[in-house]
């Protein structure tokens, strides 16, 4: 029993309450926000250490034993997700504070962001299907508020798509949870595998598909992805960064959890098809765009396909590859959006057809901060994306999944095509005569930029003008490099996590559950 792991949820939630009470005092709110998320990161790391030592830890909330009360459970997968998730949330929070834009000055930003943090943590720790649903509600509701924080027309229009689709997702998830409960009489993830196995094949399949549908909608897999590229680019960049990096992966996490533990290996063919189509349609969508933010948004979809592919291939090796891929993808995708945020902040646009051209000329370091994660996304060695790709390809070939593996290789070329498009259009080329910024928020920066153009020398000051944003972006890119450099031990951890997922039955009479039962007479 490790009740303190509930603090991962309680601390950000408490922080949200306190910062809400400090309405109107921006500085105090920010201090609370940063402190709360930093504490959560520390807690997450503690969970990771504990879990890797003990295998699996749990906490029965309210002192009610399984299956009466709600259980929080952390295994190696959830601990890993918890750490990478909170680290990203921390990075993006600091980045957003450095952005000094309209929406981050909102008195609601910090409280809602902290609730989002709590929701994400809860989703990774939920040991109970209904609690998982509640955590989705928490993180979704805060995400609704965050996408429309500025409240302008464009955001609200895109926000409607986002909100309506996610409300449908919640409804489907609720339906699935309710029917799982109706059919099995329990919601505890540890008890479900045994009871689900006793159900008639059709009922089990239907429940499986319902859960997959709900989580797949959140994760934006084919054919349920269309809402994502329509709504993400409209959100403010730091918000998009955390949505892109993290929220879709919460859906992926839930899919991994249900597909490996509740219904192991039942939908392999379906998942294989879904994976292939998600990859292809996503990447073709990216190629069709001529805006950095939109290209990156489509890549979220495409890369989800790789994760589903690993799941579809199945087996410990492929699941380990999937976990590694998710781990690589979260900071990589986040950092790309963070770079995009700086580009947009600096030029007022993220178009690849002019407006933002010549960024490499204006800031070599920024170009490097884009190039590294971009090449990683395309799977160029020795970056983390390459390790993930090789792991997936090796497991695919080893299990004779020829078609989907070949598709995955082809898609990584198309990924390269679109990354080259961004590089060519945004980082290469002549710095255009700078026009006045499109909205008032850019005022002072645009004035500074004008001197630099006259000097005909490259601007070293882009990063210096946005020190906090740059530092955070650099930090996240450094994290992706660290994942690549330490890929050996990291991958070993992923293998341990995958092996743990491969024995769903072990959870039932496992030490955690047994211990819990014994403790509460």
């Amino acid at each position, binding site marked *: 029993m490790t009740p303190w792991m509930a603090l991962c949820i309680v601390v950000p*939630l408490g922080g949200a309450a306190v910062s*809400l009470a400090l309405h109107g005092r921006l500085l105090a709110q920010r201090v609370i926000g940063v402190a709360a998320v930093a504490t959560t990161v520390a807690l997450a790391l503690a969970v990771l250490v504990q879990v890797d030592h003990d295998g699996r830890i749990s906490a029965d909330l309210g002192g009610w034993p399984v299956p009466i*009360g709600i259980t929080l459970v952390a295994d190696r997968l959830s601990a890993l997700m918890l750490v990478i998730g909170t680290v990203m949330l921390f990075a993006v929070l600091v980045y957003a504070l450095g952005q000094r834009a309209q929406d981050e000055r909102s008195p609601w930003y910090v*409280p*809602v962001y902290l*609730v989002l943090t*709590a*929701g994400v943590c809860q989703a990774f720790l939920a040991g109970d299907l209904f*609690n998982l*649903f*509640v955590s989705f*509600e*928490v993180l979704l*509701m805060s995400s*609704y*508020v965050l996408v*429309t*924080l500025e409240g*302008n027309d464009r955001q609200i229009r895109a926000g409607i798509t986002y*909100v*309506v689709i996610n*409300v449908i997702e919640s409804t489907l998830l609720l339906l699935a949870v309710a*029917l*799982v409960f109706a*059919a099995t009489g*329990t919601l*505890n993830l540890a008890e479900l595998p045994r009871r689900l196995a*006793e159900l008639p*094949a*059709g*009922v089990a*399949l*239907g429940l499986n598909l*319902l859960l997959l*549908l709900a989580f797949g*909608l959140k994760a934006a897999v084919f054919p349920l992805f*269309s809402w994502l*590229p329509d709504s993400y680019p409209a959100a403010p960049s730091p918000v998009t960064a955390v949505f892109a990096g993290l929220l879709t992966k919460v859906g992926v996490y839930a899919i991994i959890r249900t597909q490996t533990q509740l219904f192991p290996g039942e939908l392999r063919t379906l998942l294989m098809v879904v994976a292939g189509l998600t990859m292809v*349609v996503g990447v*073709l969508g990216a190629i*069709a765009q001529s805006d950095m933010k939109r290209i990156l948004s489509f890549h979220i979809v495409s890369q989800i396909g790789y994760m589903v592919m690993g799941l579809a291939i199945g087996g410990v090796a492929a699941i380990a590859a999937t976990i590694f891929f998710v781990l690589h993808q979260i900071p990589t995708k986040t950092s790309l959006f963070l770079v995009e945020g700086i580009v947009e902040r600096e030029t007022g646009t993220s178009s690849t057809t002019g407006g933002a051209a010549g960024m490499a000329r204006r800031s*070599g*370091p920024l170009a490097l901060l884009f190039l590294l994660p971009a090449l990683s996304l395309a799977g160029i*060695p*020795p970056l983390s994306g*390459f*390790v993930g790709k090789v792991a997936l*390809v*090796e497991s695919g*070939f080893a299990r004779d999944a020829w078609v989907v593996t*070949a598709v995955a*290789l082809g898609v990584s*070329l198309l990924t*390269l*095509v679109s990354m*080259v498009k961004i590089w*060519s259009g945004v980082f290469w*080329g002549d710095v255009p005569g700078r026009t006045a910024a499109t909205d008032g928020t850019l005022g002072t920066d645009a004035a500074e930029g004008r001197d630099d153009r006259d000097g005909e020398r490259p601007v070293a000051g882009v990063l210096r003008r946005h020190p906090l944003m740059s530092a955070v972006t650099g930090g996240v890119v450094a994290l992706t490099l660290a994942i690549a450099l330490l890929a*050996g031990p990291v*991958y070993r951890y992923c293998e341990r996590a995958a092996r743990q997922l491969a024995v769903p039955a072990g959870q039932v009479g496992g030490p955690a559950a047994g211990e819990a039962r014994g403790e509460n007479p």
Partner: protein
Amino acid sequence: MIPLLLLHLLAAAACLLPGTRAGRRTFAVAAVPPAATFLWLLTVAGGVLDGTPLVADLTWVPQLGLTLQFRMDGFGLLMGLLVSGIGTLVMAYSLSYFRPHGDHPPRDDRAPDETARLAGLLVAFAGAMLGLVLSDGFFTLFLFWELTSVTSYLLIGIDDRAAAARAAAQRAFLVTGAGGLALLGGLVLLGQRSGTTTLSGLVADPPSGTLVTVALVLVLTGAFAKSAQFPLHFWLPGAMAAPTPVSAYLHSATMVKAGIVLVARLAPVFADVGPWRALVVVCGGASLLVGGARALREQDAKLALAHGTVSQLGLIMILVGLGTPATTYAGVAVLTAHALFKASLFLTIGVVDHEAGTRDLRRLRGLGRRLPVLAAVGLTAGASMAAIPPTLGFVAKESGIAALEDTGIGMLGPAALVLVVVGSVLTVAYTLRTVGGLFGRDVPAGDDGPAPIDPAAVHRPSVAFVAAPALLAALSLAGGLAAAPVGAWLAEVAGSLTPAAAEGYLTLWPGLHLALGLSAAAWVLGAALAEVVRRRERGDEPAPTVAIRAYAAGYDGLLRGSRRLTAVTQSGSLPAYLTVVLTTLVIALGAAWLRGTGPVDDVPWAESWLQVLAAVVTGGLALAMVRARRRFTAALLLGGSGYGLALVFLLHGAPDLAITQFLIDTLSIVLFLLVMARLPDRFRAPPSWVPDGLRLGLAVLVGVAVAGFSLAASAARSEPSVGDEYVLRSEPEAGGRNVVNVTIVDFRGFDTLGEITVLGVAAVGVVNLVTAARRRQRRDGATGPGTGDGDDGGRTDAGAPTAAEGAS
């Protein structure tokens, strides 16, 4: 080996440090790692050639076979010497090449930090290329292979303000990148079939089978793309957008040899497998002819040489790819000769370009007289290219022709011989045209062409500038004059590829054999062809090649196809997205039904007529709502349907639930009506191609499917529900008689905390939107849309019953 690679990385980082103002002087830093490598290689050469390869390992991700494994044998030594030696010379040359001019601006005049960037990338490339030629592990090879592609991409696009340079860089990167993926697939397959992760292990114990054949074809594809072999050759001429030192180093002497290095290592063992030899002869032969023919038409001397490189690479590919000991040996010799003379020629053209301000063959005249030393250098290197004695090019090609005379591999041998001889004719012709055009003419080539240069205005290059090409040309000559010892040394090198190749030799006077006759025929016919071409010269720029146009069409097609597909998937219409989601739901539940959902005994249709009435009202209003055309009507009908549901709850004996439902529906209607004021009166009509009944049909299907599956799921339970436990424990343990209350606040209190949070955040969202609209109104007087409120209102409506239902 690993410290040397790190040294390259370090030097690259030093050159690329932001704010470097050192300009071209950074090339002095960049020259250090290759020079150090060259010297180190010389010290270890003896031991390596005696048959004890140097090995180094560095573990990375051992579970995936990702380990850095290096192994330097004789061939690796030769390639390492070429890479580091030519690298050092190119860096030294660049110091002069990027020197700004006194009176007229040279072609490559760039800001200091750009020059520094170039130096940094060039030394990074040198490191990557060194790693490539020394790698033994599959992934080690692939890692450096891709790194050379990336650095090549950045170097070709170094003049990124020119759209042509960007396009050429992209083309080169994507073609080699595609080849890289084929290679990766092939290597993974080979690794899994052979159980080894090193080239040396693979060659020592070669696997076989269909998959191995597929893997080898994939590997060949990667090698062809990298070494610019037909039909993937077209990126190479475009790469000439890079500054000349880059072209000399990457795109003639080293990087384009990467594919050949890989083929050379595999061919002795795998040449017999499946289509290997046929592919090598067809693709290599086509490159040989296509490149040679095109080289005869280009007006830009550098471009002509680039097409010549495609042609020469085809020749080398045939020789090493056939994989017999004699051809392997000849291939190694030609490869060495080519690296020396082609780098020399490129650097020579760079000098001409720098001093005369152009490299257009139509404009150049009188340079032979004005720059005699440089002309001698160019002619020597050219002689080696055209295989004219007494150069290394000649002796190497002689050995190649001799090796092809009797290969013992059936009809492919003679076919290859014919291709090589025809290619040699073309080579002689384009060499005469290019080198002759650079130095030989005193009068301009055409009357109506671009204005010729004034030879007197051409600068004389410094000694340091000419040193690098001169040294390389001298080596080309010395290699021919000292054919026997050089040949013996190369035999030791080639022996590491296949032991029998160690018997190869080079000789300046082969005797009156067929090989010499064929060479002589090539000189004569080549000279004649050059004369024919000269007379028919129209002096115009040739049109883009077919391959370039095909690539452009393919790329545009990809863009067009993507746009078309995306227009379908991203219609931007929320109803369309919802249709997809709901259809998927119906299909999913239909599939479950087909699988067999078990018996549903005694369906509890109804307990009273009141229930039936409530159900009919709820359902009927819902159906009517789907048909509604006006928002106002729809909102009212939806609310009515909700009241009907509240009635159902009430009749089931759940008054608390009924009250919750009733209150929330009332609140929703109020919110809807508030929002409605800002929205159009009617819904937007669906597009005309949508069938009329679609919406209704889908709604009914979803209803039926969900209801049916709910019945099936409820009927499937065989174990007791935890709900029974709640009832049992509620009073004795939790001290509450109302089990629903106890569940909400105690058993599952944490869920309730979450739902309260959801409601709180929803309230924040509404307040934020309202105040945001007010802020904006104050700011610009425009009416802000309040449409977001409705959605948030709708959201709470789904959230609250949730808590209740979960507890029931």
